[in-house]
Each structure stands twice: as C-alpha cells, then as structure tokens.
C-alpha cells in the first residue's frame, strides 16, 4: 500500500546510514586488529567512514525532529509543534535511541581525534573504539533475525511499531491526515524542559566516552606487551576524563538541587552512584599513572583500574537501561527490551579485557623494590586503593537488585528466600563513605609535602606547621559557629581544611607558584572544598518549616508548614506570607514574601516563588525556589496545594466546580478529601409510539468522608423534547452540591458537577523550607576542580 504524506526517503536513508555505520565499525575493528600497514590504512578509512555516516544519521534525526515528521515514532514521542527550538537537543536525547546516539557521537569524535594523535598505538586504540561502536550501533539497528530483534531504530515509523502492526488505522492510506493523533507529537516531558537537560547529558556522556581512551591504551599496551610509551598519552586522557566526568556528575547534582524537589544535590540514588563509581576508579587510575610515570612499578594495578573504570561505565549502562533498578530508584526505569544485548556488550568487554590482563599478568613488569613509607608514591598508591574500595562498596550496595535477580527467590540460583533491600540508603552510604572521604582528603593534604622516593621527616613537618595551625583554628571556629561536634564530622572538616590550606601553602610558599603544580593544586583545593561544602551543608541542614498549628498526639511536629492565604506565619528566623498564586504557562507560581523582625516591626527582606509544574505526562511536579546568600541558601518548595486557580477557588456562593465522569461502580477522589462513587443509575423512560415521551435519569452517588461517614444522594437530570431540567442534591453538613449535568455521548458516562460551599474552606498551602549553610563552598569547589583539571591537562599536553 502506498501511504500519503510519509517521508519514506528519510526512513530509508536513516536505516541505510545506520547499517553502513555498523558495517564500517565492524570492518574498522577487524582491519585494525590485523597487522600490517595496509590493514591499518583500511581500518583508519573504515573508522572515519563509520564516524561520517554516524554524524550523517545524527544530522538526519535532528532534521526530521526539527521538521516534525510525526510519522516517525521517535519524532512523535519526543517532540511537538509547540516545542521551543532551544529544547530540540533535549528532545533528541530524551529517548533511549537518542542517548545512545549521543554516547556514540562522543566516541566517534574522540576516536576521530585518536586516528590523528595515537601514532603507533593507533591500531589497537582506535580498534577498541571501533569494537565499542559496533556494539553501540547495534543498539539502534532495528533488525529482526527471526523472532529476535537487534536494537531499536530511531527511524522506525509509528505504523511499523510492533504494537501497531495490523491495527485498523494502519489500513488507511491517508492515516496521517485522517487521525488527529498525528497532527502533533506528545512532546518533550516538561520536567526536562530546562537548560540543565541541554547541558548535563552531553557533558556526562562525554565523560563516559572519555573513559574509553585510557581503557583502549591499557588494552593496546597489553596487546603489544608495551607498558611504557603510551603512559604519557593515557595520563593526559585520564585527567581529561576525571575533569569532564566530574563536571557532568556535579551538573546532575546542581540540576537536582536547583530545579527538582529532591531536597538536596546528592541522594545516593542508584543513577547517581553508578556514574560516580567510574569517576572514583578513573581518579585512582589517573594517579597510578602518575606514579608509573614518575617512579614506575605499578603496571598491574594501573592497568586494572583503567580497565575497570570503563567496565563500570558499561555496568552503569546495563543497570540503568535494563529496568532492573525499577524498585529502588526515583528515576523510574522500565525495561526497554535491550537487556540481553546490553548484557552481551558488558560481558564481551569484561571477559575480553580482564581475560587479557590475566593472560599477560605473568609477563607484566613488577616492582623491584618496595616503596618507603616516607615516599609520595606509597601514599598515592594507598589513596588509589581507597578510591577503588570506596567505588566497589558503592557498586555492591547499588547492585542489590542484581543480586536479587541472580540469587533471590525468583533468581537463577536461589540462595535466599526474600529479596534484599537497603532500608535507609542515605545513612548506609554516609556511614561508610564519610571515613573514605576522610582518608582521601588527608592524603590530598599530605601528598604535596611528600616527595617521590624519599621525604625528609623534619622537612615534611616543618613545611606545614602554618597549615596545621591555620587548619586547627579554622576548624574550631567553624564547629563552634555551626555547633557541629560529631567526631567523625569534625575530623572530616579538619581534614578537608587541611587539604585546602595545605595545597595553597605548598603552592605559594614552597613551589613558588610553579605553573606545573598549578593544575593539581587548584583541582585538589576544589575537591577539598566540595567535601567541606557537602559535609557542612548536609550535616547542618536545618528544616525551618515546622507545623505548629496542630500537633497530633501520636506524631511529632511536622516538617511542613501550613499557610493560609494572607496569613503571616513564623518560619525559622523569618516570617513568611503567602500572598497568592499566578499561572504562567505550565507553571503555578506560589508567591511567598519573607519578612524579618526589626524593632518589633516586620520588614520585607525577599520574595520566593516555589512553583508547581502542571505535567500531564508525569504528574504535577513541585519545583523549589531558593534564596542564595553567601553563607547559606534558603530552599523552599510547595509540598501540598490545591491545584485549582485563584478565580476558581473564590467565585460566588458555590465554588470549585468540578466535572466528574463516572461509570457505574467507578469512584473519584474529590477535593482531596471525599470519595465519590456512582452506585447506580436510575432510568425512567415511559415508551410511547414515537419513542420515549421523557427521560428521567438519577445518579445514585455515595460520598465518603475522611471520618468514614457515608452520605447517599441522587441528583436528577430530566429531558423532555429539547428541554432539560436538573434537580441538584446537596449535602448540607459537608457543604457540597452535586448536579447531574449531562451524559457524555462519547464515553456514555454521566457527568456530575460537584461544587463546594464557599465557607467550606480557606485556601492554604503546605511548604517545606530548609537552610543549607555554606553550600556555596560546594559550587566554588566544583568550579575550581574543573578549572584545575583543565590546567593540568593543558600543562601536560604542552610539556609532552
């Protein structure tokens, strides 16, 4: 059949480009693997063709999305006519296929660069890239082999989706113009319509892609049995990776803090964890590379960490995209049907790389002499080990759902009878990770004062007397101001100050501003501030909203403050007034005015407007509003609100009119407090020769309150000729009125209009307000760490 209005050329071209991209990546992997210059040239050509076809297909997908070709499933699901063009990028990587493409894009870019810079390692390094790309492109191939499918193509048409094949509407040639569904797409989830969604995923995926470079160098080294000439290149790339991946992760935290009501920037959610772990391991690996370069003797552990970091990226991909985390993460992941393919991808590289490492293990150069306890390399090695253990702990705890799948009651080998779960994940991770962080910052502080090979003890201590004094004084002052005396926290704060001040002192006083250590100084200073900022802002987080209007005997005062409109109530050191709400597109803004008490009078200090996003697809979402001060943030969000507009809430005698459509037996939750159920529908229609003379319909409703009392009522709707009459039913005690308005002819259900008596309720909202002290240290630290890695990478490229 020939369908009207489809852009089949784009579908053909898109699938063609995907297929060629796949074939070229496989060809490149094989050609690069074979020895000889001719093969290498062929591999290079194939890889560049792979990258070119990939860029072509990405461009094509952008094109069909920008032009709203809604016959394409991906376009229809992720864009809409009213989507602002600036969110086209966000829409592109909203879906599974698009985010794979984003990842492949960065891999192709990095691989392309490496075809020029990798020199004599080009063969194995770009070869590994090609192999990885082959697996990734297969995720979007959309090819069926018998019953088994390989990947989902973003160029599939809606009518070709397996759930639509054979449906009646696919029989119409002009289905695109016949069915209103195709006039517009469902659009980008409003939750993702913000600038974070534009910048966070590309950064994070560049971070993920960058872990592949050190991995490839490690594999290349193992294949060639050469553990020397690639160290410098891998070093630069691994610090690049640490920087970009770190920024990507922190951006996710900033997004959660600024725009989502998760109540903080880090929640130890599986998704956050599985992107943090590769970073921890890569940071360890990068430092081992430094030891290897300056001193040598750590080849096996360096290789292990560099390989592991990439494998953990694959594991993270598997966890987040297989639907296995469904019960344990706020990011609702569903099985997208690629689990099997993802598992093969993960196993191939895990077995391949670790197998290669084991096979070569005996021939790897080992340490000739033990490192002294007074050498920098010894403590740097310990630091890398701690990072590794920290990462493994997070991985193990995040993998509970995997263990349950393997060994749980319904698992492959059933070892235990009930699925395991972490009861209080935040407390669990904090309890274990805080000591790890403490060791790391202590090592960061001491590291600069240690020299490779041997450090003089007296000089080591003498050089940092000032640091010790300053750190201790500052810690005592901070703890006193914050009233924070938990020994573990005091220790961590001291250690992170020590790392920050120690690095500064070393750089200015002993290294005399030497440009070569600038990168590490700034990055380490940044890391220390991140730890200090996270600790202080989280451990001293103060929930200042306390509901004092009513405290139930059995329950402690609540953390949600109830404010009636126009009332001014106490909120921590402030007084807050809810003046009203305004509608702005898909947002309801709740205007809050904050006052401070000065000489017995209230003086306005600032406004905040936390808002609720009316999101049909995901449900309504609260977005916080934060007042930033240098030394603290006041963070508020609306935790409960009546979602109707102001006008609706305050009309004449009856207000809050609300249409309820019910079939017999169905019920509806009304005004957040009543359960309305249609028990029966009474019909009276005496027949005459020309059909019914009149029709009387009565809706038998039962209304149940929170106190469990039930009221039975029957509003009536009568029709005679073209005249209709309504007899409304009222429940005086509750101040409720029900009117039987009409029958919805499309659904055949009665439509009841409910309304509330005006006096019934005054508008109110519940808000939660928290103070995060010194959270700016965290953001300052993030910027410094990013800046430091940039300096480090640039100075290293210049030197080599």
């Amino acid at each position, binding site marked *: 059949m020939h369908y009207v209005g489809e852009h089949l050329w784009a579908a053909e071209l898109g699938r063609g480009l995907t297929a060629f991209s796949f074939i070229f990546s496989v060809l490149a992997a094989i050609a690069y693997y074979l020895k000889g210059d001719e093969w290498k040239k062929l591999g290079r050509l194939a890889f560049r063709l792979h990258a070119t076809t990939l860029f072509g297909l990405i461009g094509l997908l952008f094109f069909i999305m920008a032009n709203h070709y809604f016959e394409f499933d991906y376009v229809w699901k992720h864009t809409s006519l009213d989507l602002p063009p600036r969110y086209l990028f966000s829409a592109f990587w909203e879906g599974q296929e698009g985010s794979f493409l984003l990842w492949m894009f960065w891999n192709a870019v990095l691989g392309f660069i490496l075809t020029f810079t990798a020199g004599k390692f080009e063969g194995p390094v770009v070869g590994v890239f090609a192999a990885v790309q082959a697996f990734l492109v297969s995720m979007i191939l959309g090819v069926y082999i018998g019953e088994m499918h390989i990947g989902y193509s973003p160029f599939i048409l809606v009518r070709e989706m397996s759930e639509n094949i054979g449906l009646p509407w696919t029989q119409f040639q002009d289905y695109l113009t016949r069915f209103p569904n195709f006039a517009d797409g469902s659009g980008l989830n409003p939750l993702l319509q913000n600038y974070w969604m534009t910048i966070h995923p590309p950064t994070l995926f560049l971070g993920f892609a960058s872990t592949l470079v050190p991995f490839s160098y490690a594999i290349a080294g193992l294949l060639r049995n050469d553990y020397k000439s690639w160290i410098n290149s891998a070093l630069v790339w691994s610090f690049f990776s640490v920087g970009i991946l770190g920024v990507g992760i922190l951006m996710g935290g900033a997004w959660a803090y600024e725009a989502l009501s998760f109540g903080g920037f880090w929640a130890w959610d599986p998704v956050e964890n599985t992107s943090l772990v590769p970073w921890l391991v890569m940071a360890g690996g990068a430092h081992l590379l430094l030891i290897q370069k300056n001193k040598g003797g750590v080849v096996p552990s360096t290789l292990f960490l560099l390989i592991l970091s990439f494998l953990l990226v694959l594991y993270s991909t598997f966890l987040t995209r297989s639907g296995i985390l469904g019960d344990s993460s706020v990011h609702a992941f569903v099985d997208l049907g690629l689990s099997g393919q993802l598992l093969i991808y993960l196993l191939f590289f895990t077995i391949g790389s670790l197998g290669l490492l084991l096979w070569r293990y005996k021939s790897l150069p080992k340490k000739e002499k033990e490192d002294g306890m007074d050498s920098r390399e010894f403590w740097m090695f310990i630091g890398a080990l701690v990072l590794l253990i920290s990462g493994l702990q997070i991985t193990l705890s995040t993998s509970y759902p995997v263990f349950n799948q393997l060994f749980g009651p319904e698992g492959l080998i059933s070892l235990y009878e009930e*699925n395991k779960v972490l009861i209080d994940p935040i407390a669990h991770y904090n309890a*274990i990770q805080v000591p790890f962080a403490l060791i790391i910052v202590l090592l960061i502080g001491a590291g600069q004062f240690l020299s490779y090979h041997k450090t003089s003890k007296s000089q080591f201590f003498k050089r940092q007397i000032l640091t010790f004094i300053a750190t201790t004084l500052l810690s005592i002052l901070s703890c006193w101001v914050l009233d924070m005396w938990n020994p573990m926290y005091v220790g961590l704060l001291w250690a992170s100050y020590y790392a920050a001040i120690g690095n500064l002192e070393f750089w200015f006083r002993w290294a005399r501003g030497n440009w070569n250590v600038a990168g590490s100084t700034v990055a380490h200073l940044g890391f220390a501030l991140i730890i200090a900022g996270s600790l202080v802002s989280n451990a001293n987080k103060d929930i200042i909203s306390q509901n004092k*209007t009513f405290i139930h005997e059995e329950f402690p005062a609540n953390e949600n403050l109830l404010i009636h409109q126009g009332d001014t109530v106490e909120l921590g050191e402030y007084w807050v007034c809810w003046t009203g709400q305004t509608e702005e597109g898909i947002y309801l803004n709740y205007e809050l005015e904050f006052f401070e008490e000065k000489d017995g009078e209230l003086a306005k200090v600032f406004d905040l407007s936390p808002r609720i996003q009316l999101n049909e697809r995901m449900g309504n979402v609260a977005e916080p509003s934060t007042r930033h001060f240098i030394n603290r943030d006041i963070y508020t969000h609306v*935790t409960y609100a009546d979602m109707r507009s102001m006008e609706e809430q305050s009309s004449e005698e009856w207000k809050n009119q609300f249409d309820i459509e019910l079939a017999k037996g169905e*019920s509806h939750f009304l005004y957040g*407090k009543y359960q309305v159920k249609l028990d029966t529908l009474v019909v009276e229609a005496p027949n005459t020769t020309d059909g019914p003379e009149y029709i009387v319909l009565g809706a038998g409703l039962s209304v149940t309150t929170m106190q469990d009392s039930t009221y039975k009522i029957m509003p009536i709707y009568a029709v005679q000729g073209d005249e209709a009459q309504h007899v409304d039913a009222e429940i005086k005690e509750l101040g409720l009125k029900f009117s039987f308005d009409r029958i919805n002819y499309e659904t055949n259900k009665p439509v009841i209009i409910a309304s509330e008596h005006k006096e019934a309720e005054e508008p109110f909202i519940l808000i939660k307000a928290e103070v995060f002290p010194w959270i700016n240290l965290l953001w300052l630290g993030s910027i410094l760490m990013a800046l430091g890695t940039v300096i480090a990478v640039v100075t290293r490229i210049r030197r080599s």
Partner: protein
Amino acid sequence: MKNSQIAIIIAIAVLIGYTLVRLGNSSTYSNFEQATEKMGEKTTVIGYLNLEESMDFNPKTVQFSFTAKDKKGNQTRVIYNQPKPQDFERSEEITMTGYATDTAFIATDILMKCPSKYNEQNEIDSDKIYK
C-alpha cells in the same frame, strides 16, 4: 613487613568492616503479615493501592492515609505523615518503607511506580478521526 602487604591488610580490614555495617543495614522486602509479626521494626513492603477504600489527606495534621494490598493479598491501612504524593491515585505499585503498629502501617518513605502514564499518552486512539 612489606608496605604493599600493609596496604592489602588495611584494605581487607576495611572490607570486613564494610561487610559488618552492610549486614546491619540491609533488610529484606516483606509483606504486611511479616511486618506485623515484627511490630515496630523498620521494613519495606511492596504493594498496591486499593482504590475501593478511602484515601484521606488531612493538611492540618499533614497525615495521609490509604489502604494498600501487598503481593499476597493482605491489606492494611497505611499512614504516611507527609503530604499526599502527586498523582498517587495513578500509581501501579508502591514501595513503602516503615513499620507496623497494631492499628496501621506507618510509612516513613514511599516510592511510586507509574509506567502506564507514559504508555497511555502514546496510544493511537483510532476512534477519533477528523469528520
């Protein structure tokens, strides 16, 4: 003793410590029956919302209560001292962390799963056509 051996011993010590903490903190998913047996002990139950029963939210006390059914079909009243989560009615599955008392299950944390939201939107409604 060699330094590398010291390092490995430290690593092993940390791992043992970790395992101990882990055992203390982990628990298993349970159902309402098991939760009632261990009254007052924190546990996690996966269940479904029973829409037949009432769902109440009192903003004055910030108390939300509903009736949930666990996977074995046992049902109980659940009290959640937090504002009612948005679109709670539409949830398919609810993961509730909390403890049982003799009258109700007190939930301290609730996670909802609503995958159908996404699918509903993406169905072609072929009854609707341009006339």
